[in-house]
């Protein structure tokens, strides 16, 4: 039996790696992947708690998160493709259309 | 018809019409203005019974409608009308009709949106006059801003965006303070009676410790003073008027400014009478300064619209002064001046609009000798100008005289200083008139001016009739407003007395004023002063 704490610790570290990835990389695609990492970290925590609580709700949530992730990736990648067409770049520090 | 929700229909008919106009095809200019005119005319006809169905002798609110709106907060959809709001509502429907007909040819771009907004504005204004629920009042009050903001910002002149934003922010600044005061009233009401409500009539019976009234009164007064506008909060007005399209100026001057004074009369004064007693002299002096100041500054304006705008500051000073005099002459004069100002200044703006439409300039220096070229216009201008100056026999005189009389009874100096405004108004108006209408034709362009068209004459005819009617036989108007005004006066005085007494009894044993919560007020005192 794996202790829930271990899984949570793993989840935390994975999440942090995702955060660091978002912060240090400038390639939008890699940032996107890092986000996926974070989502997976969250999923991991869900699964861990589901096991501890002997409930299926957590796993159901993971299922929904995955759906959202799939949708997000589809749209997000479409955006990136579009962006690349317009700007010839996927580097986020070259794009500041939102500047106030 | 008795069961018909008449007031609601009055409020929402223009809104429905606005929506209908808004979905018409954008380039169908002719049908758009016809339908807008028909809607405004129907609304006016439909509002005419306000003249005879609002029974003059009956002082309270009539045709009340009450529906739950947000039950948790105790906010209600509560409408009602009395002599004061009835007359102002009539003025509103009348002015809107005039403004719409007047704007027939002057609005070329986006006429659909323009007429829709004017109609929506009418709905907002009528709602503001009719509602008897403070939250509803606030909603209408703010809702009114938006169409006006757009009218100035889209159809305005050169600096329209600046003017529109200034207008909006100024008014907002005041009204958020008012919202805070409304909310604190609500809490006090809940604390006092246990029932959460925004109902105005309930607030009329809510005892407030005089020490608490001051801030709430100031918040209300600030909002209303901006709207009036009172010196020194008036600077949005010249900009808004100058930049606004003619119809916007007319409605702004004729109705929107009255919201401020109406607010004083309906809310600020009867709700916080003790605070009023403290503040009245200051407000009155500000009003008097406004009278003189507006007139002086109007005198040196090179732009006709700006001149009229500053004259509005001056005239509205009279209205506030009459209210602060706190006697029946002052009140009646104030109310008369509201109506007069609506008619005369509305007409003045229309007149300026007429030549602006033809010449695309409002500079006084660009005109001269108009009498030779367009005599009918000039004669109408003369009459309207005289009514604005307050010549006896025209409407302007009755209002100004009653206000001065009321002020005189309160304090001789008020009347003396305010009466100089009467001299000054003659100065700036006559001088403007002389430069525009008299003299030889100095600009060749002016020779080609065409005199008023049939449609324009149709616009001015009822205004002229009103000018003389209200000047020669104003009694029908006075009869309608007086019971309502007397009631406000009575209520204000009674409440002031009641709460001052309550305060005295509450504070005496407690030694400290702070805990003098409304709960400490004895119930008999409250009942005694309520009606």
């Amino acid at each position: 039996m794996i202790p829930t704490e271990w899984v949570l610790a793993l989840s935390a570290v994975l999440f942090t790696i995702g955060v660091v990835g978002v912060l240090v990389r400038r390639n939008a695609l890699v940032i996107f992947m890092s986000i996926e990492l974070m989502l997976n970290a969250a999923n991991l925590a869900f699964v861990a708690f589901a096991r501890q609580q002997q409930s299926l709700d957590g796993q159901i949530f993971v299922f929904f998160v995955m759906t959202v992730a799939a949708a997000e990736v589809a749209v997000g990648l479409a955006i990136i493709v579009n962006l690349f067409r317009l700007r010839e770049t996927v580097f986020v520090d070259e794009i500041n259309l939102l500047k106030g | 018809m008795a069961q018909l929700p008449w007031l609601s229909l009055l409020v929402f008919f223009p809104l429905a019409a606005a929506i209908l106009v808004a979905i018409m095809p954008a380039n169908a200019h002719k049908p758009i203005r016809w339908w807008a005119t028909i809607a405004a005319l129907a609304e006016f006809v439909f509002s005419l019974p306000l003249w005879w169905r609002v029974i003059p002798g009956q002082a309270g609110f009539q045709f009340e409608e009450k529906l739950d709106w947000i039950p948790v907060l105790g906010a209600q959809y509560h409408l009602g009308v009395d002599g004061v709001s009835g007359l102002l509502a009539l003025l509103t429907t009348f002015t809107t009709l005039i403004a719409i007909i007047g704007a027939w040819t002057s609005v070329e771009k986006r006429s659909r949106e323009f007429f829709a907004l004017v109609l929506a504005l009418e709905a907002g204004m009528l709602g503001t006059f009719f509602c008897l629920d403070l939250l509803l009042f606030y909603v209408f009050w703010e809702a009114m801003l938006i169409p006006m903001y757009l009218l100035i910002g889209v159809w305005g002149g050169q600096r329209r965006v600046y003017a529109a934003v200034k207008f909006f922010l100024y008014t907002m600044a005041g009204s958020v303070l008012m919202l805070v005061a409304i909310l604190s009233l609500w809490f006090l009401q809940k604390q006092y009676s246990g029932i959460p409500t925004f109902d105005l009539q309930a607030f009329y019976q809510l005892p407030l410790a005089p020490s608490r009234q001051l801030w709430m009164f100031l918040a209300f007064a600030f909002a209303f003073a901006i709207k009036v506008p009172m010196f020194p909060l008036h600077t949005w007005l010249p900009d808004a008027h100058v930049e606004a399209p003619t119809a916007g100026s007319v409605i702004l001057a004729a109705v929107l400014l009255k919201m401020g004074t109406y607010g004083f009369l309906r809310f600020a004064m009867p709700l916080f009478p003790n605070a009023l007693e403290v503040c009245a002299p200051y407000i009155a002096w500000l009003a008097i300064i406004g009278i003189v100041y507006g007139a002086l500054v109007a005198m040196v304006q090179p732009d006709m619209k700006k001149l009229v705008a500053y004259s509005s500051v001056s005239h509205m000073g009279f209205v506030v002064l009459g209210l602060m005099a706190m006697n029946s002459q002052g009140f009646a004069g104030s109310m008369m001046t509201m109506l007069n100002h609506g008619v005369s200044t509305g007409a003045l703006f229309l007149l300026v609009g007429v030549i602006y439409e033809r010449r695309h300039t409002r500079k006084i220096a660009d005109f001269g000798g108009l009498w030779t070229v367009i005599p009918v216009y000039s004669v109408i201008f003369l009459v309207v100008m005289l009514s604005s100056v307050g010549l006896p026999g025209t409407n302007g005189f009755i209002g100004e005289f009653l206000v001065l009389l009321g002020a005189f009874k309160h304090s001789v100096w008020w009347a003396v200083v305010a009466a100089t405004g009467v001299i000054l108004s003659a100065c700036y108006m006559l001088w403007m008139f002389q430069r525009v209408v008299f003299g030889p034709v100095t600009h060749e362009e002016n020779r080609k001016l065409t005199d008023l068209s049939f449609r324009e004459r149709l616009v001015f005819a009822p205004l002229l009739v009103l000018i003389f009617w209200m000047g020669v036989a104003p009694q029908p108007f006075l009869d309608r407003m007086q019971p309502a005004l007397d009631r406000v006066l009575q209520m204000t005085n009674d409440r002031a007395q009641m709460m001052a007494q309550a305060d005295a009894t509450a504070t005496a044993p407690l030694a400290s004023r702070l805990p003098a919560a409304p709960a400490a007020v004895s119930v008999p005192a409250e009942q005694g002063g309520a009606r």
Partner: protein
Amino acid sequence: MNLPMLWIIPALPLAAVALNMLFGDRLGKKGTAFLACGAVGLAFAFAVRAVLTLAGRSEEERQIVETAWTWFRVGDFSVDVSFLLDPLSAIMVLVVTGVGFLIHVYSTGYMAEDPSFRRFFLYLNLFMFAMLTLVLADNYLLMFVGWEGVGLCSYLLIGFWYEKQSATDAGKKAFIVNRIGDFGFLLGVMFLIAWTGSVNFERVFASAPHLFTAGGSIITIATLLMFLGATGKSAQIPLYVWLPDAMEGPTPVSALIHAATMVTAGVYMVVRSHVLFEMAPVTLEVIAIVGAATALMAATIGLVQNDIKRVLAYSTVSQLGYMFFACGVGAFGAGIFHVMTHAFFKALLFLGAGSVIYGMHHEQDMRKMGGLATKMPVTHATMLIATIAIAGIPPFAGFWSKDEILAKAFATGHYGIFAAGLLGAVMTAFYMFRLYVLTFQGKARFDESGGHAHAHAHAADAHGAHAHDAHGHAAAHDDHGHDHGHGGPVKESPWNMTVPLSVLAVLSVIGGWVGIGKPFIEGESWMGRWLEPVLGSGPHVHHLAVSTEFGLMGLSVAIAAFGIFMAFRAYLQQPSIATAMHERFGGVHRALYNKYWVDEFYDAIAVNPIYQASMRLWRFWDEKVVDGTVNGVGYFLEGVSALLRLFQTGYVGTYALFIALGVLALFLHFLRS
């Protein structure tokens, strides 16, 4: 009901206005003239009928009140539109409608060639309406309607030739100066309302003795304010400045409004309110002094003016001064008497002057006239009568009224005022005969065949002479602003001008006889008895001995004769005297010629400072301070936003960083708790 229908008297001219406005363009000049004159004539007939009804009653009942409707009623204060006919208003209404009718007729001739003929009669009828309302009103507020109404018509008629800058300036000046007076009048009325609760004459006068202490400060202030109103309307110091400028209007207007009727409204108001004024001795004293000072000052200015209408204008101011000091010394009846006689002879003088101007093709400078006696016989004869009347030679009208005023002043012990009156009388006689001599006697000083061209040449002169004028208007040339195209020789005016002249001339002779009193007949004069129900027998001082009365009369006649003699001598027989005088007293002459620089003084102390202050208020206070504050708040917020904007870089990384930092902050928060 066999009421005399008072309301119809003012309503008739008003109806004419309405008809003229609606159908005037279809009527043509003849129709318009007929309509206008007919309405006023009919009003005169109704007035006569009403007055006869009044006279038919016993003395105590000589008062007719007719209420048309309640004008407005607020609280316990109410005002009716109602009319009052009593002996006082009877005199006024007869004078107004009578003289008004004559002047209407005269105008049909004088204005015959003006393109704005119809507008002229429109205004004129409107004026009649307002004036009759003023005179017939039975309360102060309705009187105020007429009061402002005549002011309006005066404004419109002075600026009748609206294309002329000087005319519209003068009109505006008249209206605004009058407004200053109205301000006083209105406040005075408010004092009455505040204390008596009514504006109705009868009620105010009945309650005044109980509510005010005689000589108290309230009644003094109230009456002083009302008198301020009177100074505005009746052109007294300090508000007389508008009247001379008012000569920019057509001459019949000057005759009707600025001589015979409107300007006497102030006197009428004071006499009407005599109950109040008698309770305020200080005010009466002020009135007397102001009246005397005005009489003297205007007379001195009148001595040297060259414009025929300006001389008459200053003479009017001066004569109004007489009326006021009559009131000031308590001789209200004498004041009204002088109002009446003055209306006759001054209207005649103006109309005569108009006739001269008409004949001279719009020349107004007396230096360009002379020798007209033979060319315009009717005008000459009637003018001569009027001149004698105003100079105060018995048995002409002016003598009786002026003498009564002087006698009353003397009898009440106002010797200073009396002396001033005498001095004024000399000057009146002098400048009026100067006018007469320069105009009608001596040699013709104009080009006989082409007066018109000549006049134009000199118009330039006049411009130069009046260049000092701050408003930049030229001398009051009664110029229509367009070419008449008829030069031609000087000739007599048509019948519709000369007939009114003749009628007025007759009145100028016999009009004063109704006031022949004490030394000639037993008891009060007819006029005095007629007015007694209104004015009461008065708090009369001891009557003068008959010998004193005759002495005073003799004195005033002698003085008038002296003035006349001097005028003939200086301007007809030995013109060198006049020139010598000019040179000798150059400074004085300049001061007089420039009207003591009062206009310039007012400009300097009031008009310009107010204008400058307003400009500063607008440019500095409004735009810099108030708007500056408002915009300042805006700029401040904008600055703060600009600062905050730096955080919004537009880079995703930055946002992500802030999110992460936010998470850290949350962690910290949970750690602390």
